């Protein structure tokens, strides 16, 4: 149903637009004056001032792989994240773990793990889907590179960003 | 003003006046007419008639032709097809043109006053004031009549266009 919004009844003075102009100019002049004396600025001047301390708890930055306190690579290269990834940014090359290894029970670990940061949309689905708590979205947001190749994070880079994460469920732990 | 400028502006006027007729694209024709008007204004200015020169640009180039152009653009007139030139209008046009030119030349050549050098004007002429005084004293009645006529025409246009809407 169409709704007819009644036009406001303007007085003769209001119809000249002059009172409105005056009021508006007063507002803009106030803001101008405040900013002229360095007050009221809301802009964050980026390279000098950063978002880091203002980021909310739920901020989704770059995805990265983590290791736990036993020094184990959490990822078992199940490739679930590769399949769920909407822009298909993730490419995993699975590899076997040799029998003598401490974590040989896991059977697999990624030989190579690549996330193309040009494609990544920071949706967090990989973190959501991971059964091993291996991939997490970090608070980092600065991804720069001068070539396309620079923008692809490989396994080493991903572990570098992710680092060590404690307090995770250690279902492959030898002691249990 | 030096004769060089006179020849430049008059040749420019004539060239663009010819372009108005020759050009097949209506917008190009209209713009050529504007340039022609500007040449005419320059000639007026060269005769120390600043007022008429400026009014020429203000009224013709600035208002009338803008309206023309506006309407041409709104109607989206396409460039005319190449006209088929038939013998009769061509010969007729040439005859009329030549007759007029001969007449003009003979009259100008026969008029002795046309050859007299005009004395240079003593200084800047207050032409606006003179035109105004002349209009409001000697030619007051014609001026009032023209004013009334224009007013009637304006009211008539408004009435007619309002009727069209109903």
């Amino acid at each position, binding site marked *: 149903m169409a709704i007819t919004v009644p036009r406001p009844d303007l007085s003769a003075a209001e119809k000249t637009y002059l009172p409105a*102009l005056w009021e*508006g*100019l007063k*507002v*803009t*002049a106030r*803001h*101008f004056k*405040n*900013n*002229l004396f360095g007050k*009221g*600025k*809301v*802009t964050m*001047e980026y390279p000098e001032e950063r978002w880091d301390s203002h980021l909310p708890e739920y901020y989704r930055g770059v995805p990265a792989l983590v290791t736990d306190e036993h020094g184990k690579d959490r990822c078992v290269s199940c490739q679930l994240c590769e399949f769920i990834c909407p822009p298909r940014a993730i490419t995993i090359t699975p590899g076997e773990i040799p029998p003598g290894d401490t974590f040989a029970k896991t059977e697999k670990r990624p030989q190579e793990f690549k996330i193309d940061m040009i494609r990544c949309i920071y949706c967090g689905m990989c973190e959501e889907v991971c059964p091993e708590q291996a991939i997490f979205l970090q608070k980092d947001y600065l991804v720069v590179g001068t070539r396309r190749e620079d923008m692809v994070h490989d396994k080493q880079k991903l572990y570098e960003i992710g680092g060590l994460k404690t307090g995770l469920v250690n279902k492959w732990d030898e002691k249990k | 003003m030096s004769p060089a400028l006179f020849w430049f502006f008059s040749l420019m006027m004539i060239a663009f006046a010819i372009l108005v007729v020759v050009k097949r694209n209506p*917008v190009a024709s209209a*713009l050529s007419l*504007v340039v022609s008007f500007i040449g005419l204004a320059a000639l007026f200015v060269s005769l120390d008639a*600043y*007022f008429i020169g*400026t*009014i020429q*640009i*203000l009224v013709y*180039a*600035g*208002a009338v032709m*803008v*309206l023309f*152009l*506006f309407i041409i*653009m*709104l109607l989206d007139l396409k460039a005319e097809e190449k006209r088929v030139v038939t013998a009769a209008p061509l010969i007729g046009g040439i005859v009329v043109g030549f007759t007029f030119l001969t007449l003009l030349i003979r009259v100008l050549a026969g008029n002795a006053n046309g050859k007299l050098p005009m004395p240079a004007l003593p200084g*800047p002429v*207050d*032409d*606006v004031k003179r035109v105004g005084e002349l209009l409001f004293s000697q030619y007051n009645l014609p001026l009032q009549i023209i004013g009334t006529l224009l007013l009637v025409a304006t009211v008539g246009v408004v009435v007619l266009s309002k009727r069209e809407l109903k």
Partner: protein
Amino acid sequence: MPDFIQPWLFLLPIIIKVVVVFAVVMGLVAYASLAERKVSAFIQDRVGPNRVGLPLTLLGFKKDLAIGGLFQPLADGLKFLLKEDLTPGHVKPFYYWLAPALTVVPALLTIAAVPFGSTLFGYKMVVADINVGFLFVFAIASVGVYGIVMAGWSSNSKYSFLGGVRSSAQMISYELSMGLSLVPLLLVMGELNLGKIVEYQAWHGWTLLPFTDLRIQWSPHWEISGLNWREILLWIPMLISFVIFTTAVFAETNRAPFDLPESETELVGGYHTEYSSMKFACFFMGEYAAMITGCALITTLFLGGWHLPIPIIHDGAFSLQTRTGDHGTLWGILNILTFLGKVIFLVIFFMFVRWTLPRFRYDQLMRLGWVWFFEIALANIVLVAVLLAFFPK
């Protein structure tokens, strides 16, 4: 000095004036664009351009000097020059190339008739001191429509076309009330020469503040002179003229709140949608040059041009005095600075209005122009004529 130069020497001061005025106007255009960005930023609680300064790192220093982004116009100009100059395939090339030039030239030409100072070293501070200066300004301004119309038509795209049509309709409409609003001024002053209009204001008071020859004496006895009914009564129609003229200048220069020809929300970029690089910059410069010329005109016609009344207290009497270049070179320079100051003040006022008011609707714009301003301007002329009949000079 060789003899053959002698007859051409009179050109020298004219050429100097042309070059200086051109340079100053172009500088003002460049810095008006920076000022616009700064003013809009401050009004909206932002910072505005603050990075481009002296690139001292190129010379081996540790840090660049930003000086509040003062060199931003240079960077902008360089960017416009170096950008790809694209001529779309669907345009009509000849008119497409002609249009930007036709926008800039009239805007810059108009300033020629505006007196920007009294006298300096005995020369009048105006490029072209013509008797019909006033009409000349209007003639050139009316030709300025062509650039926009042509840009809109030759671009051969719907946005450009609508922008061009809107703009020409708007300019034709407001030219009328603009011209009519100034007839009362001419009735009072009886002059078309802009230089003489300013001189009239210097001796008889500004059009907007007609009390310059005010004189208040308190010793030995209390007395006010320089106030008369004629001035006070004629003040009212002058105020009306001022409001109409200023609003018409807003509309003529296509600035907010009358920027319908390029309203981004409806028409992308309006008549310059299809333009890029330096050709776009021409439209941009044309718009700012037109704004500066408009402000210079308002200053000349209503705010006393180069005139600055100097308050003087002498023998227990307060009065305002006029000083021109005839009183000394310093006064001449002060007059030029006064004119520049008034123009810059008005330009900043224009910017404030742009960042304060929302855009008018097209029917409101036409209604304001034809129904209100046109009629009020006509009534204003009659009012002044009647007043002048009762209070002759």
